[in-house]
Protein backbone atom coordinates (compact mmCIF):
# COMPACT_ATOMS: atom_id res chain seq x y z
CA UNK A 1 0.00 0.00 0.00
CA UNK A 2 1.16 3.55 -0.83
CA UNK A 3 0.22 6.44 1.38
CA UNK A 4 -0.99 9.95 0.63
CA UNK A 5 0.39 12.41 3.16
CA UNK A 6 -0.50 16.05 3.78
CA UNK A 7 2.07 18.36 5.39
CA UNK A 8 0.69 21.54 6.94
CA UNK A 9 3.25 24.15 8.01
CA UNK A 10 3.74 27.81 7.15
CA UNK A 11 7.52 27.36 6.89
CA UNK A 12 8.75 26.19 3.46
CA UNK A 13 12.00 25.07 5.12
CA UNK A 14 10.18 22.86 7.61
CA UNK A 15 7.92 21.44 4.91
CA UNK A 16 11.06 20.50 2.97
CA UNK A 17 12.58 18.75 6.00
CA UNK A 18 9.40 16.81 6.75
CA UNK A 19 9.22 15.77 3.11
CA UNK A 20 12.86 14.68 3.15
CA UNK A 21 12.40 12.53 6.25
CA UNK A 22 9.39 10.84 4.69
CA UNK A 23 11.23 10.29 1.39
CA UNK A 24 14.26 8.79 3.13
CA UNK A 25 12.25 6.64 5.50
CA UNK A 26 11.35 4.04 2.92
CA UNK A 27 7.65 4.44 3.65
CA UNK A 28 5.78 3.85 0.36
CA UNK A 29 4.35 7.24 -0.52
CA UNK A 30 2.03 7.81 -3.45
CA UNK A 31 2.03 11.56 -2.99
CA UNK A 32 3.08 14.21 -0.48
CA UNK A 33 0.82 17.27 -0.52
CA UNK A 34 1.45 20.48 1.34
CA UNK A 35 -0.47 23.42 2.73
CA UNK A 36 0.81 26.56 4.43
CA UNK A 37 -1.99 26.89 6.98
CA UNK A 38 -5.10 25.20 8.28
CA UNK A 39 -7.53 26.80 5.86
CA UNK A 40 -5.44 25.74 2.86
CA UNK A 41 -5.30 22.24 4.33
CA UNK A 42 -9.11 22.08 4.55
CA UNK A 43 -9.37 23.17 0.91
CA UNK A 44 -6.95 20.44 -0.12
CA UNK A 45 -8.85 17.85 1.90
CA UNK A 46 -12.03 18.89 0.11
CA UNK A 47 -10.73 17.31 -3.08
CA UNK A 48 -7.86 14.97 -2.15
CA UNK A 49 -7.86 11.70 -0.24
CA UNK A 50 -5.20 11.68 2.46
CA UNK A 51 -3.95 8.92 4.77
CA UNK A 52 -1.96 11.01 7.25
CA UNK A 53 -1.72 14.69 8.19
CA UNK A 54 1.39 16.24 9.71
CA UNK A 55 0.56 19.65 11.12
CA UNK A 56 2.27 22.53 12.85
CA UNK A 57 0.34 24.58 15.39
CA UNK A 58 1.33 28.23 15.06
CA UNK A 59 0.22 29.23 11.56
CA UNK A 60 -1.62 32.22 10.12
CA UNK A 61 -5.25 32.08 8.85
CA UNK A 62 -6.08 28.90 10.79
CA UNK A 63 -3.71 27.35 13.31
CA UNK A 64 -3.14 23.65 13.88
CA UNK A 65 -5.43 23.39 16.89
CA UNK A 66 -8.30 24.98 14.96
CA UNK A 67 -7.58 22.68 12.02
CA UNK A 68 -7.71 19.52 14.14
CA UNK A 69 -10.92 20.71 15.84
CA UNK A 70 -12.53 21.28 12.41
CA UNK A 71 -11.43 17.92 11.07
CA UNK A 72 -12.84 16.08 14.05
CA UNK A 73 -16.29 17.56 13.35
CA UNK A 74 -16.33 15.90 9.94
CA UNK A 75 -17.31 12.20 10.01
CA UNK A 76 -15.05 11.33 7.06
CA UNK A 77 -12.08 13.60 7.72
CA UNK A 78 -12.06 12.78 11.44
CA UNK A 79 -10.74 9.33 10.63
CA UNK A 80 -7.49 10.65 9.13
CA UNK A 81 -4.73 10.30 11.72
CA UNK A 82 -2.97 13.52 12.64
CA UNK A 83 0.59 13.92 13.87
CA UNK A 84 1.28 17.31 15.43
CA UNK A 85 4.79 18.70 14.91
CA UNK A 86 5.33 21.83 16.95
CA UNK A 87 7.77 23.87 18.94
CA UNK A 88 5.07 24.30 21.60
CA UNK A 89 6.00 21.82 24.29
CA UNK A 90 3.70 23.18 26.97
CA UNK A 91 1.65 20.59 28.80
CA UNK A 92 -1.67 22.35 28.20
CA UNK A 93 -1.26 22.45 24.45
CA UNK A 94 -0.05 18.88 24.18
CA UNK A 95 -2.90 17.63 26.29
CA UNK A 96 -5.46 19.62 24.30
CA UNK A 97 -4.19 18.30 21.00
CA UNK A 98 -4.26 14.71 22.16
CA UNK A 99 -7.74 15.19 23.65
CA UNK A 100 -8.86 16.65 20.31
CA UNK A 101 -7.76 13.39 18.76
CA UNK A 102 -4.22 13.87 17.47
CA UNK A 103 -2.49 10.51 17.15
CA UNK A 104 0.88 11.82 18.24
CA UNK A 105 2.91 14.91 19.03
CA UNK A 106 6.50 15.53 17.95
CA UNK A 107 8.27 18.45 19.58
CA UNK A 108 10.57 20.63 17.49
CA UNK A 109 13.55 20.40 17.41
CA UNK A 110 13.44 16.71 16.55
CA UNK A 111 15.85 14.11 15.31
CA UNK A 112 14.81 12.77 11.90
CA UNK A 113 14.79 9.24 13.32
CA UNK A 114 12.22 10.27 15.93
CA UNK A 115 9.92 11.70 13.29
CA UNK A 116 10.33 8.65 11.10
CA UNK A 117 9.44 6.34 14.00
CA UNK A 118 6.33 8.33 14.79
CA UNK A 119 5.16 8.39 11.17
CA UNK A 120 5.72 4.64 10.89
CA UNK A 121 3.90 4.03 14.15
CA UNK A 122 0.86 6.05 13.16
CA UNK A 123 0.71 4.58 9.65
CA UNK A 124 1.17 1.13 11.13
CA UNK A 125 -1.87 1.69 13.26
CA UNK A 126 -3.79 2.84 10.18
CA UNK A 127 -2.73 -0.31 8.37
CA UNK A 128 -3.76 -2.59 11.23
CA UNK A 129 -7.08 -0.82 11.59
CA UNK A 130 -7.61 -1.43 7.89
Amino acid sequence: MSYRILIVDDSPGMRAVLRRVIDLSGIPVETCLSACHGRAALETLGSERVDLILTDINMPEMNGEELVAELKKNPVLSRIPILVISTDATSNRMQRMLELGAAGYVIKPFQPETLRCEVERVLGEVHVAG
Partner: protein
Amino acid sequence: MSPVEVDRALTRCTGRVLETMCYSDPLPITGLEEGQPCIRTQLRFHGTYSGIFHLDVTEDAGRSLATTFLGAEEDVPAPEMASVICELTNMICGSMLSTLDARADIQLDAPELLVDGVPRSEGASYKAFEIDNGQMAVAIQFN
Protein backbone atom coordinates in the same frame (compact mmCIF):
# COMPACT_ATOMS: atom_id res chain seq x y z
CA MET B 1 11.04 34.27 35.97
CA SER B 2 14.46 35.63 36.84
CA PRO B 3 16.97 37.11 34.38
CA VAL B 4 19.29 34.22 35.23
CA GLU B 5 16.61 31.67 34.27
CA VAL B 6 15.95 33.50 31.03
CA ASP B 7 19.65 33.67 30.18
CA ARG B 8 20.10 30.00 30.89
CA ALA B 9 17.07 29.06 28.79
CA LEU B 10 18.27 31.25 25.93
CA THR B 11 21.63 29.47 25.87
CA ARG B 12 20.25 26.00 26.37
CA CYS B 13 17.47 26.27 23.80
CA THR B 14 19.66 27.85 21.16
CA GLY B 15 22.15 25.03 21.66
CA ARG B 16 19.46 22.37 21.55
CA VAL B 17 17.90 23.68 18.33
CA LEU B 18 21.19 24.19 16.52
CA GLU B 19 22.57 20.81 17.59
CA THR B 20 19.42 18.86 16.77
CA MET B 21 18.47 20.49 13.47
CA CYS B 22 21.83 21.76 12.14
CA TYR B 23 24.37 19.57 13.95
CA SER B 24 26.14 22.73 15.07
CA ASP B 25 27.70 23.25 18.49
CA PRO B 26 27.42 26.95 19.43
CA LEU B 27 30.14 28.39 21.68
CA PRO B 28 29.23 31.44 23.81
CA ILE B 29 30.94 34.75 22.95
CA THR B 30 30.33 38.28 24.17
CA GLY B 31 28.81 39.70 21.01
CA LEU B 32 28.80 39.76 17.22
CA GLU B 33 31.77 41.33 15.47
CA GLU B 34 30.88 44.70 13.99
CA GLY B 35 30.33 45.24 10.30
CA GLN B 36 29.46 41.71 9.22
CA PRO B 37 26.51 41.26 6.86
CA CYS B 38 23.76 39.59 8.83
CA ILE B 39 20.37 38.03 8.36
CA ARG B 40 18.03 39.39 10.99
CA THR B 41 14.67 38.09 12.13
CA GLN B 42 12.08 39.14 14.64
CA LEU B 43 9.18 37.21 16.17
CA ARG B 44 6.42 38.56 18.40
CA PHE B 45 4.79 36.29 20.93
CA HIS B 46 1.58 36.51 22.96
CA GLY B 47 -0.40 34.57 25.49
CA THR B 48 0.70 34.07 29.06
CA TYR B 49 3.86 35.98 28.17
CA SER B 50 4.19 38.60 25.48
CA GLY B 51 7.21 40.18 23.97
CA ILE B 52 9.63 40.04 21.12
CA PHE B 53 12.42 37.70 20.09
CA HIS B 54 15.31 38.57 17.79
CA LEU B 55 17.86 36.48 15.97
CA ASP B 56 20.90 37.77 14.06
CA VAL B 57 23.16 35.44 12.12
CA THR B 58 26.12 36.32 9.90
CA GLU B 59 25.42 35.46 6.27
CA ASP B 60 27.98 32.74 5.78
CA ALA B 61 26.92 31.06 8.99
CA GLY B 62 23.27 31.38 8.03
CA ARG B 63 23.96 29.77 4.68
CA SER B 64 25.81 26.93 6.39
CA LEU B 65 23.00 26.36 8.88
CA ALA B 66 20.36 26.38 6.16
CA THR B 67 22.27 23.99 3.93
CA THR B 68 22.66 21.49 6.75
CA PHE B 69 19.08 21.92 7.98
CA LEU B 70 17.78 20.98 4.55
CA GLY B 71 20.28 18.16 4.08
CA ALA B 72 21.60 19.78 0.93
CA GLU B 73 25.01 18.97 -0.50
CA GLU B 74 25.56 22.48 -1.88
CA ASP B 75 24.80 25.95 -0.54
CA VAL B 76 21.12 26.79 -0.76
CA PRO B 77 19.88 29.99 -2.43
CA ALA B 78 18.83 33.07 -0.47
CA PRO B 79 15.05 32.42 -0.27
CA GLU B 80 15.59 28.93 1.19
CA MET B 81 18.16 30.30 3.58
CA ALA B 82 15.75 32.98 4.79
CA SER B 83 13.01 30.41 5.32
CA VAL B 84 15.28 28.23 7.41
CA ILE B 85 16.52 31.12 9.54
CA CYS B 86 12.91 32.09 10.19
CA GLU B 87 12.09 28.53 11.21
CA LEU B 88 15.12 28.40 13.54
CA THR B 89 13.85 31.66 15.08
CA ASN B 90 10.45 30.02 15.60
CA MET B 91 11.99 26.93 17.16
CA ILE B 92 14.35 28.71 19.54
CA CYS B 93 11.69 31.12 20.77
CA GLY B 94 9.01 28.44 21.13
CA SER B 95 11.42 26.09 22.85
CA MET B 96 12.49 28.85 25.22
CA LEU B 97 8.97 29.81 26.25
CA SER B 98 7.98 26.17 26.75
CA THR B 99 11.10 25.61 28.86
CA LEU B 100 10.52 28.68 31.03
CA ASP B 101 6.93 27.78 31.78
CA ALA B 102 5.58 24.39 30.77
CA ARG B 103 2.07 25.47 31.70
CA ALA B 104 2.05 28.68 29.68
CA ASP B 105 -0.28 29.48 26.83
CA ILE B 106 1.99 30.35 23.90
CA GLN B 107 1.10 32.03 20.64
CA LEU B 108 3.86 32.82 18.21
CA ASP B 109 3.44 35.18 15.28
CA ALA B 110 5.21 34.26 12.05
CA PRO B 111 8.88 35.28 12.12
CA GLU B 112 9.73 38.32 9.97
CA LEU B 113 12.92 39.15 8.16
CA LEU B 114 14.25 42.58 9.05
CA VAL B 115 16.09 44.82 6.67
CA ASP B 116 17.88 46.77 9.34
CA GLY B 117 19.12 45.52 12.63
CA VAL B 118 17.31 46.40 15.79
CA PRO B 119 19.43 47.99 18.48
CA ARG B 120 19.71 45.92 21.61
CA SER B 121 17.31 47.37 24.15
CA GLU B 122 17.60 47.77 27.87
CA GLY B 123 16.08 44.83 29.66
CA ALA B 124 16.50 42.35 26.81
CA SER B 125 18.30 39.11 27.52
CA TYR B 126 21.01 38.66 24.93
CA LYS B 127 23.34 35.81 24.04
CA ALA B 128 25.88 35.53 21.23
CA PHE B 129 27.59 32.42 19.88
CA GLU B 130 30.41 31.34 17.63
CA ILE B 131 29.07 28.77 15.14
CA ASP B 132 30.40 27.15 11.97
CA ASN B 133 31.46 29.85 9.48
CA GLY B 134 30.35 32.77 11.64
CA GLN B 135 28.28 34.00 14.54
CA MET B 136 24.74 34.18 15.84
CA ALA B 137 23.01 36.30 18.48
CA VAL B 138 19.60 35.84 20.06
CA ALA B 139 17.69 38.22 22.29
CA ILE B 140 14.34 38.14 24.04
CA GLN B 141 12.43 40.95 25.66
CA PHE B 142 9.26 40.48 27.69
CA ASN B 143 6.62 43.20 27.85
